[in-house]
């Protein structure tokens, strides 16, 4: 067997480990591959090289995630792969996604905090499904009566979204930009309205009702 002084062989071992691992591998974990003491700096250098090697060739990329490095298929190939495997994980409802967003951006938060922001009670099953997915966890308890659990997102959440850290989350919209134009602006014309039809604010247009008409009031 070659020795690890052979850099090419060392790189091949690292690549093989990453191709076969069912989870992200951190540098300390990758060091365990070798009985010799391989420096973290060297491993990082090799990882960069492997990442470069795969860039542009093949449908696969090496990504750095919160808990380590992992190979994944480029998203562009998903339509093909999806045909092979008709079973897909679920797309979460708005209730689940909004709860997740609050935990991700405001962590650590209690269930009460989540309810205060959403203005509705949070069902246990919503929390349970995020917990089952391994995306959220209780990291402590708030020192108030009832000692409610404090929720935070996990590393797996970052990994599954292909993120390195919470800082890589899309930035929250500035509160200022959420304010719509002044009321005395000229009304939109039809074309503009049509363009706004898929806009978030207009999403319920299609389902709009006349319930606000005088007869109801």
């Amino acid at each position, binding site marked *: 067997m070659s020795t690890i002084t052979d850099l090419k062989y060392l790189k091949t071992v690292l690549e093989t480990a990453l191709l076969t691992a069912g989870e992200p591998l951190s540098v300390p974990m990758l060091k365990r591959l070798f009985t010799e003491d391989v420096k973290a700096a060297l491993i990082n250098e090799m990882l960069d090289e492997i990442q470069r090697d795969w860039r542009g060739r093949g449908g696969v990329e090496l990504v750095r995630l919160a808990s380590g490095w992992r*190979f994944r298929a480029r998203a562009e190939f998903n339509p093909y792969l999806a045909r092979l495997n008709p079973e897909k994980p679920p797309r979460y409802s708005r209730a689940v996604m*909004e709860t997740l967003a609050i935990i991700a951006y405001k962590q650590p938060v209690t269930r009460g905090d989540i309810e205060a922001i959403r203005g509705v009670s949070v069902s246990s099953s919503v929390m349970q499904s995020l917990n089952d*997915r391994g995306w959220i966890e209780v990291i402590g308890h708030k020192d108030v009566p009832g000692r409610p659990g404090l929720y935070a997102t996990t590393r797996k959440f970052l990994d599954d*979204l292909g993120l390195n850290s919470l800082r890589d989350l899309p930035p929250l919209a500035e509160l200022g930009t959420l304010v719509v*134009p002044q*009321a005395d602006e000229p009304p939109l014309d039809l074309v503009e309205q049509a363009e706004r039809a898929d806009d978030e604010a207009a999403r*319920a247009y299609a389902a*709009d009702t006349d319930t606000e008409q005088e007869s109801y009031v």
Partner: protein
Amino acid sequence: MSAVPADPALESAHGVAAGPVEPAAASGGAEPIALLFGQPVLDLPHDLFIPPDALKVFLDSFEGPLDLLLYLIRKQNLNVLDIPMATITRQYLGYIDAMQAERLELAAEYLLMAALLIEIKSRLLLPRPPKDDDGEPDDPRAELVRRLLEYEQIKLAALELDKMPQADRDFAWLAVLIEQGAEERLPEVSAADLRQSWMAILSRARHTRHHKVEKDELSVREQMSWILRVLAGRDYVAFEELFEVDKGVPHLVVNFIAVLELVKEGLIRVSQDAAYQPIYVRLATG
């Protein structure tokens, strides 16, 4: 996407007529967006009504009172920082009335929001107490505006999060085999894994939507399996033998439903020669 059919017949059948549309803003008058046969059109035609049957569905598309309120404000292009309380409160109460007219189960949160809107409106009518250090007087709307903006921020963030590629849903991890020698380890499975799998099945609604899911079904299903096990390998079993009286009434009821379900599915046969004679249960295939 026009989700509401603009069917005039339906419209009149439900007695919901297209009424005048609220002005686009509190200050300005309603500028028609188009003229149709000389009449001003103030809103898009498919917006004109909602069949009462669909009201529940419509409300289901809101995540709660904040979401609904935000919709009312955004729909009319109103400035959140300067909510015309009278207009918005009237519209909100309109929705609540409609909900009650349809005898929908009214969530407490919606009523609470109505109370809050009315409170703010009434406080706006009262003379404002002057502040000590000639600062701005408190606007009773301020807290509501803060909550609306915070909620909208999260709502947008949730949309963004959902757009991000998610493992398994949008991309695949690599899984190259390592040929294992020696002993084989068995996969571990938890109840949570089963739940996750069931959610995956549900999300493929095309195949499952005809499949009614009932709350208490599981205990019945469990009893069905139990009864089939009891019957397996025996010609017949006396009806009473399937009922364990000491397990309590709920258990007996569930067990009885299980027997009926098995008969319905053609898995067992229940027979009785004459009234008051013993009832026997056997496998349908026996």
